[in-house]
């Protein structure tokens, strides 16, 4: 659906990272893990195109204590002000209106069984894993869900307090050791995967391409199912511009698939990682 809503909050979560939310009544379309919205960042025609934001959290007062009153609910996004579009977005304030289209795209496929679920996040990739974590703990023991968050430095480790109440396992790594263990999140994943049987483990990842490529290769080596959340330029977000094509291998054949419609979630073996 498409609508314009008043912004509930648009606050800095960490230097240059923001959380933005607007009301999302219960009777609006259900949002699956990994789905995204397209939001307009300017009223005029520059910047022209909407920006894609993965849904971070969605829910009522249980999720957002700042919502005043029961019956209210909201959807929240976590984003980094990197370029012009997200820079404009960061200047919006509570009460300004935000025009959105969504929810869009496919979702993570929830496995029928599995004793170990590894959610591997870098940067704002974390945002597409919150709803997934909640979906997983509904059907699997909470102790089977393991969130691994990596970043360059302390300031890139975002929003852990949001995840803690879920009760899942959380591992943090930073390259400079300013938070959690020093190292790379992919090393943590690698050693974790060493201890588990392939067919009981599932990997889900979202973050920078090099990180996801590494996660994919580690999983492949161990023959563990891995789903990745891709990003890339989008013109529309709902399948009509053909601007978001990504290269995919289907049965060994190279094909283009639409990031916005067939994705953003893909099985990692299908993805062509380029020279990365």
């Amino acid at each position, binding site marked *: 659906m*498409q609508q314009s809503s008043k912004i509930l909050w648009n606050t800095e979560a960490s230097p240059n990272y923001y959380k933005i939310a607007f009301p999302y009544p219960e009777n609006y379309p259900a949002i699956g893990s990994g789905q995204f919205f397209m939001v307009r960042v300017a009223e005029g025609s*520059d910047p022209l195109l909407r920006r894609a934001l993965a849904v971070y959290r969605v829910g009522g007062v249980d999720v957002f204590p700042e919502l005043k009153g029961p019956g209210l609910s909201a959807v929240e996004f976590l984003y980094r002000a990197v370029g012009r579009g997200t820079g404009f977005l960061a200047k919006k304030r509570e009460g300004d209106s935000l025009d959105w*289209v969504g929810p869009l795209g496919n979702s993570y496929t929830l496995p029928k069984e599995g004793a170990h679920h590894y959610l591997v996040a870098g940067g704002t990739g974390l945002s597409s894993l919150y709803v997934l974590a909640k979906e997983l703990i509904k059907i699997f023991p909470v102790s089977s869900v393991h969130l691994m968050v990596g970043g360059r430095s302390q300031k890139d480790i975002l929003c852990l307090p949001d995840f803690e109440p879920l009760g899942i396992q959380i591992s943090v790594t930073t390259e400079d050791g300013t938070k959690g263990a020093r190292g790379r999140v992919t090393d943590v994943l690698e050693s974790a995967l060493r201890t588990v049987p392939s067919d009981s483990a599932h990997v889900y990842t979202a973050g920078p391409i090099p990180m996801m490529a590494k996660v994919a290769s580690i999983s492949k080596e161990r023959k563990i199912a891995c789903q990745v959340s891709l990003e890339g330029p*989008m013109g529309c977000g709902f399948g009509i511009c053909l601007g*978001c094509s990504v290269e995919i291998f289907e049965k060994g054949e190279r094909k283009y698939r639409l990031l916005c419609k067939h994705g953003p979630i893909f099985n990692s073996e299908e993805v062509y990682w380029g020279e990365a």
Partner: protein
Amino acid sequence: MKPDLSVQIGSIHLQNPVLAASGTFGYGEEVDLFDVNLLGGIVTKGLSPKPRMGNPPPRIVETGAGMLNTIGLENVGVEAFVREKLPRIGHLKAAIIANVFGGTVEDYVTVAQRLEGEKGIAALELNISCPNVHQGGMEFGNDPGLAAEVVRAVKRATRFPVIVKLSPNVTDVRLVAKAVEDAGADALSLINTIPGMAVDVYTRRPLLKNITGGLSGPAIKPIAIRMVWQVSKVVSIPIIGIGGIATARDALEFLIAGASAVQVGTANFYEPLTMPRILSGLEEFLHSQEIPSIRNLIGTLQV
């Protein structure tokens, strides 16, 4: 009284003058944010004899009030269009116009022949902004003679009305317009995208894999209106205006300048409700100005 929005493009009757532009609305079945049957028409993604994968990504980049694309004419091919897409849209009240392109005159003819006699198609639109493979990549649309040749060949192959979509990338668009009118075109549509380019200053590479791409969106609107006006002075066949249309006012500018209908492209991407909003905006305008029919506005520019 409800103002009359219906228009006539030669023998094609449209319930209103707002069409979706080729390549910006899929095959008419992708969008579910509004009832597409409200539209005047839908121009399909460009069809070629065989399916095409299109160009490698990145395929789009945003520019000031515009965007560049190098989709590369990805399409399902005319065969799959007739078999899989047309049955789902051919019954609509919105006119279905099949956009056709090729690298040789034969390509155009092949597609036209395959479409000939198919139910649910109102007209063909020939995209002549394609590089002619036999002429070293020179665009059909850049050369009045080549453009006329394509039109004559297609006219022989089809009984559908033929709309020729003009390229803006010429010194004088009127020469091509005249040439294709003389060759038998039933209507003209303009403009297609304008070649442009953008550079990543950090990697020092083009932002599009294909180096250059076609510029579309509000940025090109003034150029498109100028060309519609220029062409309307020299041809007597109807014109469909295209280029940066995003509001009812934009559509009115084109109609007043000489277009009998308009196509909306890029705006469908960033504002999916653009077309229904233009329709209600046109009604409101006619109502408030006490003009009974949209046809009373076409080509009424006073200079």
